[in-house]
């Protein structure tokens, strides 16, 4: 029977199964990550969000939810233009956050 809509699979993430170490390492290097309030200003202004959905907000949330591949994909198009830094109401140094995260990926410290 067709109801005109369907059920989508649950996207809930079981936080208990998530490895938070990468997020924690990031917070050590860029403590600003902890102060993100997920307002989305960064996503709204991002130069490449239209291209691959980059959003610092989603990067920070993704790390806490264990969506490491998605995060990596988002990071892989950032142009470091700094618009997100300029608009962030919490004054987070998002460029530093992105660069440090790019370094942590694949480094011993950030190993998953």
């Amino acid at each position, binding site marked *: 029977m067709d109801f005109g809509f369907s059920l989508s699979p649950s996207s809930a993430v079981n936080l208990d199964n998530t490895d938070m170490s990468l997020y924690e390492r990031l917070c050590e290097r860029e403590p*600003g990550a902890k102060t993100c309030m997920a307002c989305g200003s960064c996503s709204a202004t991002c130069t490449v969000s239209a291209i691959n959905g980059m959003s610092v907000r989603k990067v920070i949330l993704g790390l806490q939810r264990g969506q490491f591949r998605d995060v990596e994909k988002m990071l892989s198009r950032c*142009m*470091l*233009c700094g618009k997100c830094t300029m608009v962030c109401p919490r004054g987070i140094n998002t460029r530093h956050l992105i660069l440090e*995260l790019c370094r942590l990926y694949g*480094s011993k410290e*950030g190993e998953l």
Partner: protein
Amino acid sequence: MRERFASGFDPFVIPFVLGMVFVLSYCLFGMIRILVQLPKADRRKFLLSLVTPKTLLKDIKDIFLNCLIHVKLWKRNPVLGYMHSSIAFGWFMIILLGHLEVMLFLPERIHLFYYPIFFNYFVAETETTLQGAVLFFLMDFFLLMILSGIVLAIIKRVRSRIVGMRRTTNPSFLDRVGLYSLWAIFPLRLLCESFTAHISGGSFLTLPMNWIFRQFLGNELNALPTWWAYSIALGVFMTVLPFTRYMHIPSEMLLIPLRNAGLHILHPRKGFARVQFYSCPGCGVCIDACPMSVRKENLKDCTVYLNRQLRRGNEKRIEEISDKCLMCGKCTAVCQVGVQGPELRLAQRTMRNYGVNPHYSDIDPERFRVEGGSAKVLYFAGCMTHLTPGIGKSVRSLLDKAGVPFKMMDPEGGLCCGRPMMMAGRKEQTRELIRLNTDIIRNSGCTTLLLSCPICYRIFKERYSLDGIRIVHHSVFFDELIKQGKLSVQHNDSLRLAYHDPCELGRGCGIYDEPRSAVSSVAELLEAGKNREESICCGGSLGSLSLNFEKRKDITLASLKNLCVEDPDGIVTACPLCQSTFSNYSDIPVQDIAQVLDNASS
């Protein structure tokens, strides 16, 4: 003149000879090492420049003016200039005159390289050598000059404020050994020559002293120990030189020809970079100049400390210092040696390994295809101008008023120019962005690329190859339109505006006059306390990777204070990033030059 000793030798010369042989071989070895480290193309370029008469002449002239006379330092601070040039030039002259004396009077001894230094010990004056009086006079004269410099140096050590510096660096232990031996050399020389002046001859300084000493001392007995002390002081100085900041003396002589050959820093430790950080004498001028130094905790992040850490190989601090810098370029502008602090840091940033390496190969330039027909002016607002839409709006309005047909490269936002990426040291990503943007610009068929953001402007100028396309910043473009009468503006006599030189536009691209001329056509132009090459970064720079928002606040406030010395009604700048950064804290309006012109035009 005749010789006092047939052998032409005395054991007291040994400390000097040993020190000299050591320092010369050290420098020779170091120089060869650096030449080996240079990339092949650079080495060729350098060697070629040494056999090109034009660059060679320039090398000699620059070495003379910078290493001996210290012209740049004179311009900056005459007291410090005198201090350095009296010692350097005076010492050079004493060595030169020493050689001249030997050549004139005892040419057979010229192969003994200690002879010109200790000439007065080895000779006795005779009736026939009165012509030597001129040389003796000059010798005393230059010795006096050096001594006056030494006195100043001692005063500077004790109280740096007297010579007009707020902050100066702390010397290390070996630096101190070098310093004190340098201070000792010249008073000892004066004593030596005075003790022997009645034998070897002297002039206005040494002869009277000789007379005084003879009233109560047995000259002969005191002479030899003093000459020993003089030789030891020289020997100690030469021996510690490579391990102290005095290494800057030989380094700078290599730095100048390398720079004149047109080399760039490619590796943060090797080759050209190495010569640069060894050429820093630690004068500390860059400390007061650095905008970060308004915060006490950032004092040690200035270029002088980067140089020190690079010499010591302190990796952790090198990384920290490299990331913090705003890349404003002011330290290079004030440095009389020309150490390129930001370039050293940039080279360090390029060394990093990342686990995620962005790439843009799947971005289709077609997506950013420029619409707008046959207009020849292409306006690229850039990321920063998109965040300060008022500026973009004013630019478009001014273009319309002047009747200049144009098209937009990034009406809905475009790609980044690549400079922020470049300043993070990611070369491959920068190259890709440049390639993409070049495609878009070439396909648009424009002949002029108009930019609002100096950050973009600089990379378009320096790194893009857009032959046949004029790259122009809007401040220059509108100034031209005003001068050509295409844009009519109203001068408001009661409006007083202070102009801020953005780092990337001013020091970065050398544009100082056009924006000023444009501002003067609509208002009374006021200058900041420190302006042009010495303008102070707004604090918003994308060059710094690790300075966070709160820490930049003090920098912005200091820069604002500097802009308000003449109590302006408003501040005008030529950079969207400066405009937005200042606006966060300024009590008076801060506008971009385009906005100011737009308000005053019809």
